[in-house]
């Protein structure tokens, strides 16, 4: 192929990812520029066709950061669905529901609000565009541009390539967006942050990252099923004590219920299936009664960073900062990350603005970002609970006990617990199930009735995901181990952990097995990139604009 000529766009600060972190960063930058009376070129790249389309969360919002960013956010019409009116925590067994007598303090949501993250991000995006920031939706960051060990910008993805990667008539090469400072807000397991972590020693001395996957549905239910503003969290069934996670049920206005299941991506049973577990959760009497006669509105799935303080990499380097979920700023004890994403986005903006004004955007100057994190609310919130997720690696009860202890002591005098990368904890079929796998309960799927429970493909339809079919695959899989090793050892876990049926194993007429990748089904959750035991799956962004449509989620 002949080398393509690329356009370049020069800006002062480039933000990759138009989620809560990226948009908070953009807005903060424009506030600084206005205050100082200087002009500052800020651009935001967002792979979704419109702002918020790929944003997925429960979501309970701690409004503290939003208040700092936009003090009169209520008056400006921020889409806050309802204040939280009551909290419940239940422990579930297969048939029973046991209410915890007290709500553990980190799960008390007094003063917090229920929001649709999709709507909140859309609203933030309007503010950001009004402030004069260029928000480029439908453009994915494909590669980090590095020159002399310094991040100088990002190359966006090519458009108009066919399945084989050859340019079609509408071909448009990606653009090199060059910036004095690039702020990576590309979300959980962001493909560009992943490149940074591979290229620079940012994670040296840190614990391995930890993740979970959350599956969520939005339902419209008959009136009176769940009080508006009620927040329910569940522990136990359908997860076993060795599996980290839990369920949630949030009461939204207009008889809408947001429900979901979060499962740690560090499970040991290779036959564990998060989507199947979600269906089991929905068939539990507590949930089934709530949804009976209702209607599924939307479905979605997304990974979340659960590792906590000790797994956060160095977040400043020459010419670049990392903020939000991309770096792992999420409080897994409080089950909240939006306020931390926005907070780190704002702190990144402070540091980037200072560096651009000073004409020095080296890692040394940008280290003010790290200092601001260490001195402020982010560390104050995350440090005491830094070991909690790792403690749950010992099981639910030791984990809960440890979490309680961490709360009492504020995390002082506690030894740091080592974690393992989640995918490395997966056991082989034989190790876990013995020789006769078929005997195990998990080998059978829960029945799908298409009223309450759905198969993956139907769920995918409700995610609204769409990709142009004729484009290169965006899931780069080294398939050599699929049938030779992964199949016999782990039973192809990709077909289970993917919540969108991207992966299928087909048996050919001659009996050989082949991995079929339905890339167009992808909901951009990143689970496969995280969890595949051989780490042979790399998620790269598909052509900009493709992906789920999480309206109202």
């Amino acid at each position, binding site marked *: 192929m002949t080398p393509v000529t690329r*356009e370049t*766009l020069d800006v002062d600060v480039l933000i990759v990812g138009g989620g809560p972190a990226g948009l908070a960063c953009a807005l903060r930058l424009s506030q600084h520029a206005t205050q100082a009376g200087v002009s500052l070129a800020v651009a935001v790249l967002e792979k979704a066709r419109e702002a918020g389309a790929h944003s997925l969360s429960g979501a309970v919002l701690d409004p503290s950061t939003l208040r700092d960013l936009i003090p009169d956010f209520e008056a400006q019409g921020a889409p806050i669905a309802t204040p939280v009116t009551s909290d419940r925590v239940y422990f579930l067994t297969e048939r029973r529901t046991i209410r915890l007598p007290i709500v553990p303090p980190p799960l008390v949501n007094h003063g917090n609000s229920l929001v649709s993250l999709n709507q909140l991000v859309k609203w933030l995006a309007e503010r950001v565009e009004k402030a004069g920031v*260029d928000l*480029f939706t*439908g*453009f994915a960051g494909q590669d980090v541009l590095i020159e002399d060990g310094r991040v100088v910008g990002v190359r966006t993805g090519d*458009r108009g390539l066919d399945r084989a990667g050859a340019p079609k008539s509408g071909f*448009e090469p990606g*653009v090199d967006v060059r910036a004095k400072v690039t702020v990576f807000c590309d979300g959980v397991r962001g493909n560009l942050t992943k490149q940074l972590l591979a290229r620079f020693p940012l994670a040296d001395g840190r614990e391995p990252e930890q993740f979970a996957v959350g599956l969520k549905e939005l339902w419209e239910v008959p009136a009176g099923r769940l009080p508006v503003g009620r927040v329910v969290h569940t522990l136990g069934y359908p997860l076993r004590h060795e599996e980290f996670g839990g369920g949630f049920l949030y009461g939204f206005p207009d008889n809408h219920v947001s429900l979901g299941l979060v499962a740690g991506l560090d499970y040991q049973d290779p036959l564990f299936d998060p989507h199947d577990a979600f269906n089991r959760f929905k068939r539990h009497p507590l949930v089934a009664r709530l949804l009976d006669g209702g209607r599924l509105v939307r479905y979605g799935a997304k990974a979340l960073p659960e590792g906590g303080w000790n797994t956060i990499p160095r977040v400043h380097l020459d010419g670049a900062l990392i903020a939000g979920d991309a770096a792992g700023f999420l409080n897994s004890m409080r089950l909240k990350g939006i306020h931390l994403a926005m907070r780190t986005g704002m702190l990144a903006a402070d540091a980037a603005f200072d560096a651009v004004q000073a004409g020095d955007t080296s890692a040394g100057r940008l280290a003010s970002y790290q200092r601001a994190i260490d001195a402020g609310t982010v560390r104050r919130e995350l440090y005491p609970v830094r070991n909690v997720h790792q403690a749950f690696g010992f099981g639910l009860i030791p984990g809960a006990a440890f979490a309680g202890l961490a709360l009492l002591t504020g995390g002082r005098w506690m030894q740091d617990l080592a974690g393992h990368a989640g995918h490395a904890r997966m056991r082989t079929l034989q190790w876990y199930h013995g020789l006769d796998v078929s005997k195990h309960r998990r080998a059978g799927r829960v029945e799908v009735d*298409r009223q309450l429970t759905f198969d993956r*493909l*139907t769920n*995918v*339809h409700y995610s609204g995901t*769409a990709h142009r*079919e*004729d484009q290169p695959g965006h899931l780069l899989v080294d398939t050599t181990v699929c049938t030779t090793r992964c199949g016999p050892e782990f039973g192809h876990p990709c077909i289970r952990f993917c919540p969108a049926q991207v992966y299928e194993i087909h048996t050919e*007429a001659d009996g050989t097995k082949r991995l*079929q990748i*339905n890339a*167009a089904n992808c909901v951009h959750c990143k689970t496969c990139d995280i969890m595949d035991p051989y780490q042979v799956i790399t998620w790269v962004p598909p052509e900009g604009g493709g992906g789920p449509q999480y309206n109202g989620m």
Partner: protein
Amino acid sequence: MTLVVVEHSAGVISRASWEAVAAVQSVAPDGEISLLLLGSGIGELAAVAAARGVGPVHVVEDAALGAYTPDAYIFAVGAAVAALRPRLVAMAHSYQARDYAPALAARLGAPLVSDVVGLRLENGELRFRRPMFQGKLAAEVRAVGDAPTFVALQIGAFRADGVKSRTDGGASSPVERLTVDFTGFTNRQTAEPPFREARQAVDLSQAERIVAVGRGIKAQEHIAVAERLAVALGAELAASRPICDNGWLPMDRQVGSSGQTVAPKLYVAVGISGAIQHLVGMKGARTIVAINKDPDAPIFEVADYGVVGDLFEVLPAFTSELSKRSR
């Protein structure tokens, strides 16, 4: 002086070329403009161009320019530029221009600004506006380097009726023949006569009857079984996504959310389980017949007639019964 390369086909000067003239006039209403017309047997066309009175029309005629080829255009426009020494060479951002202008500009070491939607002068220097990011952003650029500057103007960005005549009395501008020596020129391309793409994409939405195959067909060679039924029914052959995904049938035969939406009188779903992505593309069919091994397949929920069975037994039986009747 500005040279505008005029494009024509079938004896008509393209409107986009007049738009290019208007664009140039918009920044320098009194500037000198010449037109360049290339072709073979274009004397009449030159007179038509001259009648607009925008400036002298330079004509290069040669058999090599009869049908467009990039080699001949690069050679001829290059020779004209060398002879006339314009500061600016303007043209419509047409397929032809996209083809030859970059090569010519590169050969001359001259700047090329393409897809321009606006021009303005700043301190006597031209600034060009052009879209970026698929039109989400407009960039203003300036050409760097020696004259001439090549500029290709986006079609439709300027109004052709804005072209102003420079000869007040309505007289024609002069036509000047420009001799270009084609000896030693070898053309690496030969142009075939123009044709229209013959193969129409299949428009399943107009089909009265459709036989659609799904994953149950198992192998590409088995599609013939369904094809025979389609022939017997006088139906179009369609497929669900996995079939087209495997390349067993072309993409334009795909029915469903990522394919076509159809509403035939008869829809025979063969080995299709009925994923919702497929159902949204065909649930408008008047009569749906489903053939599937799995009695729990969701396709039976929308089917008017359902056959639970092996399609390799059911289909041939259907086909032979149909052919008997038509006999």
